[in-house]
């Protein structure tokens, strides 16, 4: 059981939840969150937004019963966080890196951008697409070389994929697929990593409900992913 350090409402839909935690997470990993006893049944998978030696933070969008309960947590409340889980973004990469997020899919990109920037040879551009009011622009601006924000349009229109050595994306599946198509056209699909979303039960590889078909056979999004090479998932 962990304790909530703070819970900050960003706007009607989003909140930033900070929880006591000493575990070290890797970029693109997630936790299973649970701030209730036996109802609702399942815990909720939420990506690491940020973390330090004593805490982990989550950027969460309220969509249903579980995220609603999480949004009401207050400092000092108990929360069960199981993790970090999964295989996240590639770590030891260097060069020109683009991070492309849509909606709450921007969450795992924050810590990722920060870590990539730790290598002075890297340039890190962050592309964020929002359908409604954009959030956390200032925060993302600080941790990357260039921040490109698109509101109401297609963030995928704003990127020249050929400029990058690595392109990492997280967001609605439809957005990621458009980006993949674009990369195919621009022959950059070999450098595209996608963070997949799927409904989960265990979150740690034991139940096989989160399977994602890849061209290396069935993979577990929770254990083998959530991050995959786009070609592995959508390639022939």
């Amino acid at each position, binding site marked *: 059981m962990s304790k909530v350090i703070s819970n900050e409402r960003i706007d009607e839909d989003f909140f930033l939840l900070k929880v006591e935690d000493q575990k070290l997470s890797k970029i693109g990993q997630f936790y299973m969150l649970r701030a209730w006893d*036996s109802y609702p*049944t399942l815990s909720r998978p939420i990506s690491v937004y940020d973390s330090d030696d004593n805490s982990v933070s989550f950027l969460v969008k309220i969509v249903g019963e579980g995220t609603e309960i999480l949004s009401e947590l207050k400092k000092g409340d108990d929360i069960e966080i*199981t993790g970090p889980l999964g295989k996240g973004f590639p770590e030891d990469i260097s060069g020109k890196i683009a991070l492309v997020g849509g909606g709450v899919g921007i969450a795992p990109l924050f810590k990722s951008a920060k870590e990539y920037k730790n290598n002075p040879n890297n340039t890190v551009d962050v592309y964020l697409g929002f359908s409604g009011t954009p959030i956390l622009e200032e925060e993302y601006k600080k941790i990357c070389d260039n921040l490109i924000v698109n509101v109401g349009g297609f963030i995928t229109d704003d990127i020249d994929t050929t400029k990058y050595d690595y392109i990492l994306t997280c967001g609605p599946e439809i957005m990621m697929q458009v980006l993949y198509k674009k990369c195919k056209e621009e022959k950059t699909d070999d450098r595209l990593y996608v963070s997949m979303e799927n409904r*989960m039960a265990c979150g*740690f590889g034991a139940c*096989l409900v989160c399977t994602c078909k890849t061209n290396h056979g069935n993979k577990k999004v929770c254990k083998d992913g959530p991050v995959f090479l786009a070609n592995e998932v959508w390639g022939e």
Partner: protein
Amino acid sequence: MSRLETTFAGVKFKNPVALASGTCGFGREMNEFFDIEKLGGICSKGLIEHPHGGNDGIRVWETPSGMMNSVGLENPGVDAFIENDLAWVNSKELVNIVNLGGHSIDDYLSGVEKLNKVNLDILELNISCPNVKEGGMNFGVKTEAAREVVKLIRKECKHKLVVKLSPNAEDIVSLARMCEEEGAEGVSLTNTFLGMAIDINKRKPVFNNGYAGLSGPAIKPISLRMVHQVAHAVNIPVMGLGGITTWQDAIEFIMAGATVIQVGTASFMKPDISLDIINGMDKWLADNGIESIEEIRGIV
């Protein structure tokens, strides 16, 4: 912890708590969260003779105090299991229960043949898989259809045989009696309940298969009733499961007549919830001056 010790069909369990098939893989992932040797036993993910990719589409759907799954017996096949996982599970100090499914009698037979050649403690026969040849109707629904499978497997299988019963059976008591008659060493129940969910905006079932299997706390009252009925109707031991989430639930199943209980969906709430259940049972026995769990088995 000797007050929790129990014997199921001659197999000694250090405590009567096992993890349910399909909810704990082959144990490795669980072992990252806690030492699985603290468990009484573990049931493998349901195997079929040959590898199987499972169902397409949405595979899990949350329901009030439950969940539905439509994994569709995705599994690496018996050979891969024997090659990659069996030795590891056998190296652990707990009862190794291997769950075997099949879409046809041949599936079952060739699975058993392969498993006959290796060591394991109990073979749990899942007769609730849809029978492809008979149009998807489960083997486990009608007693006489199920008898055919159980009779054959019993003859072939050199391991202790526990038949896992489906709550969708027409008459679960007669099904259990049949298993006893055919020489099964025990039965386990319940598997998941056939349920449905509809996506009203898409105007389609949530699951590609239409129906899926309901598990979790929601079903506990019904599973407990069935365990009670079956345990009072047969003389072979019963593994009870279905919605067990707390140690109180576990005690209820034991009092209803189960010798061993299995924890399934609850492990998704907390990977090591089965240890809470074990500890809670042990403390309750101690607090009530009960020296062996067997004293309260079936007393209701």
